[in-house]
């Protein structure tokens, strides 16, 4: 299939369809409403379900219901809307049903604004809801990745019976880039639904899906199973990309839109004689801690760049364990840091770590 110019939001929506999305429930909010716009005509056209619910809370509970029935299902929102959905995320996680969540992050806290941000990192990777669980969190840095990771999110959600979240930001949702769509997968026929799904219990014993376990030992057992699953995910699904790290003295760590901005910084730094490299995490959970620890042993210092006050920074510091200086540069309020403000930070790190 040839490359087309895709806008990020439309690309995510179409990629979900290609991955076999059967039902979407959501509520509009800038800067991701184009996802609903695209799905609102494409899904009915294909005989699938599109429903604009009365709220984000209703949306996530509809997602929960459809997921229990074994459907490939998704919702999308932006920061304030995602906060409203968090109770549902926790129920879905405990119930071990697969669902895909798209968060096109905007400036916060509060209603904030509609500009791009990465302020929801903690929320996504540390505390997507009450109780002990993590969604798989995927952070695309360009439109092709947004497409590929959306497809992957469905497959990982299915494989591990878990939540998978795409953590994009407003600028990725609004920008356009050439990208290629995968072929359209057929929707899974009803007879191929998972054995655990609630499909009517005709001729078999009823399945029970719940997140309520009143006996402490039973709930602990559920938790131990969830933790074992998370360990399996952490062992198998860590993903990242590296740029010019082979001989780097200075390592940048940045994800999503700022990750690609730092690609430019690597080029500009190298043109000035600084041996800079970049690690761009693709999975925010599980985090590429082991690789960062390994690279930390080979560089003089690390610069973390984010569109927040320093959230992923904590995970980088945990990985580095104090063995190297870890500096931070971030912008908030919906501002994307540009190469000409990041490069001086790298030069400062260079100066501070020369002996």
């Amino acid at each position: 299939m040839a490359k087309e110019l895709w806008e990020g939001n439309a690309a995510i929506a179409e990629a979900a369809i290609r991955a076999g999305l059967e039902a979407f429930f959501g509520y509009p909010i800038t800067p991701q409403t184009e996802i609903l716009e695209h799905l609102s005509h494409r899904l009915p056209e294909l005989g699938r379900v599109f429903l604009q619910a009365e709220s984000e809370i209703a949306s996530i509970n509809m997602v929960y219901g459809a997921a229990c029935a074994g459907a490939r299902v998704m919702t999308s929102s932006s920061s304030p809307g995602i906060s409203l959905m968090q109770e549902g995320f926790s129920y879905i996680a405990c119930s071990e049903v697969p669902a895909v969540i798209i968060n096109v992050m905007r400036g916060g806290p509060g209603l904030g604004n509609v500009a791009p941000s990465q302020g929801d990192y903690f929320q996504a990777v540390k505390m997507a809801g009450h109780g002990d669980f993590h969604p798989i969190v995927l952070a695309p840095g360009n439109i092709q990745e947004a497409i590929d990771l959306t497809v992957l999110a469905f497959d990982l959600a299915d494989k591990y019976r878990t939540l998978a979240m795409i953590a994009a930001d407003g600028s990725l949702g609004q920008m356009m880039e050439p990208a290629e769509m995968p072929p359209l997968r057929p929707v899974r026929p009803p007879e191929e639904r998972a054995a655990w799904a609630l499909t009517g219990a005709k001729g078999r014993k009823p399945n029970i899906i719940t997140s309520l376990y009143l006996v402490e030992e039973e709930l602990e057992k559920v938790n131990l199973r969830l933790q074992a699953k998370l360990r399996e995910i952490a062992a198998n699904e860590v993903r990242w990309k590296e740029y010019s790290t082979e001989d780097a003295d200075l390592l940048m760590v940045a994800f999503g839109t700022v990750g690609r901005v730092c690609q430019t910084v690597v080029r500009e730094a190298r043109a000035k004689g600084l041996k800079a490299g970049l690690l761009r995490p693709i999975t925010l959970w599980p985090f590429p801690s082991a690789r960062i620890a390994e690279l930390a042993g080979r560089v003089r210092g690390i610069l973390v760049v984010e569109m927040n006050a320093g959230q992923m920074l904590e995970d980088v510091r945990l990985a580095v364990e104090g063995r190297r200086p870890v500096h931070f540069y971030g912008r908030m309020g919906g501002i994307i840091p540009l190469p000409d403000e990041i490069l001086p930070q790298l030069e400062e790190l260079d100066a501070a770590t020369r002996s």
Partner: protein
Amino acid sequence: MEEIIISGFGGQGTLFAGQVLAYAAMDADFHVTWIPSYGPEMRGGKARCTVIISDQEIGSPLVRRPSAAIVMNIPSFETFEPMVKPGGVLVVNQSLVPHRSQREDIRALYVPATELATDMGNMRVANMVCLGALVQALGILPLEALEQALDRHLAERHRKWLSLNKEALRKGAEFA
């Protein structure tokens, strides 16, 4: 590599002009990004986009200092005229911007785009007049590449304006 900002009022077609450029660059096998500065406004507010065209993978989709800019109104002139990189190109919609650039390190083109477009029958193709001037001045793509991009990607409901858009591109190119 070219880093181009196209800026004006909402409704002047700056975002669409950027998309036509992006399509033409994609069809010519360049790496390209198109990113709008988006806000809650539908029309009337500021509207601008950044288009980066490169033969290598594009990092930052945004730039502080563009290598070229189209400014379609006075606020855009005031913002971007000082920011164009030395050696760069500035296309000014002279119909709405009565200013001249004092800079000697850039190439400024003054195009009465809105008037020309009105004379051609639709003031909304002023964006294509400016784009024609810019692309001709930069020499990164032939004018035909833009015409083909219009052929391939102009929305069905705007098809009746296809030849007018092409005429506007060619008119603008005469100013480069």
